[in-house]
């Protein structure tokens, strides 16, 4: 039980953020986080430490998010942004948030592997090696996904302006 509590305490926030970044919806991110830890705690006796707990939890999160993504997401980034920084927004900051929201929407429309690689690497802050371990793919493949994802984002960002 102590191990499970430690797992929750150390990782719930990053799992929640990953869920939010994948789903773009606070309520669904909360729900996903609960599901991830429920599954993780049940699977804890079988966790043999072949990967780090974080990588393991991220994999569960990605799998569960893939399963849930069939339902359409609603845009609720503003709420998360307000919570991140409760100070009043200046006009410039508001525009920045709108840009962030737009790019986040574009990210969630990327092909699956590119989207997950972009989210893990650029938003979640994992290096390429950790991203590759989480996605279960070779590093060079992940680099290709990142490159393609970035190219697609640059292109779509311009196309929608």
């Amino acid at each position, binding site marked *: 039980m102590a191990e499970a509590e430690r797992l929750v305490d150390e990782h719930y926030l990053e799992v929640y953020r990953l869920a939010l970044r994948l789903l773009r919806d606070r309520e669904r991110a909360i729900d996903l986080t609960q599901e991830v830890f429920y599954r993780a705690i049940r699977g804890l006796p079988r966790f043999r430490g072949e990967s780090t707990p974080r990588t393991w939890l991220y994999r569960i999160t990605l799998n569960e998010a893939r399963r849930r993504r069939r339902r359409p997401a609603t845009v609720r980034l503003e709420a998360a942004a307000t919570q991140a920084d409760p100070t009043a927004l200046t006009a410039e900051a508001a525009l920045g948030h709108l840009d962030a929201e737009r790019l986040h929407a574009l990210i969630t429309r990327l092909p699956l592997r590119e989207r997950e690689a972009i989210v893990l690497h650029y938003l979640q802050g994992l290096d390429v090696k950790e991203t590759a371990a989480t996605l279960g793919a070779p590093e060079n493949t992940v680099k290709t996904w990142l490159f393609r994802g*970035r190219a697609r984002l640059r292109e779509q960002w311009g196309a929608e*302006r």
Partner: protein
Amino acid sequence: MSRQASDDELDVLLARVRRATAGDAPPALRTVLRVGLAEPRTSGVTRALSLATLSVFALILGAFVAPLFAVTLATVWWILPIAGAAWIVVRAPS
């Protein structure tokens, strides 16, 4: 004519998305997760046993109780109207 974002612009935008989604989780989430740890989990064995118990009850009900009830009712059904009539006679004001 649309213009693609440059690599630098994209980096700035990605950093914005990262910041915008780096907020704290709802305060209750951690509590909910920890409470969830304390709740008894239903193991596979428990679920299988529950299912087996339910099946046995259904079999007993279908194989013994229901036919027995039906036979009893078919045998003594005439008692019911007689008992009803007797009750009415007893309760009727004289």
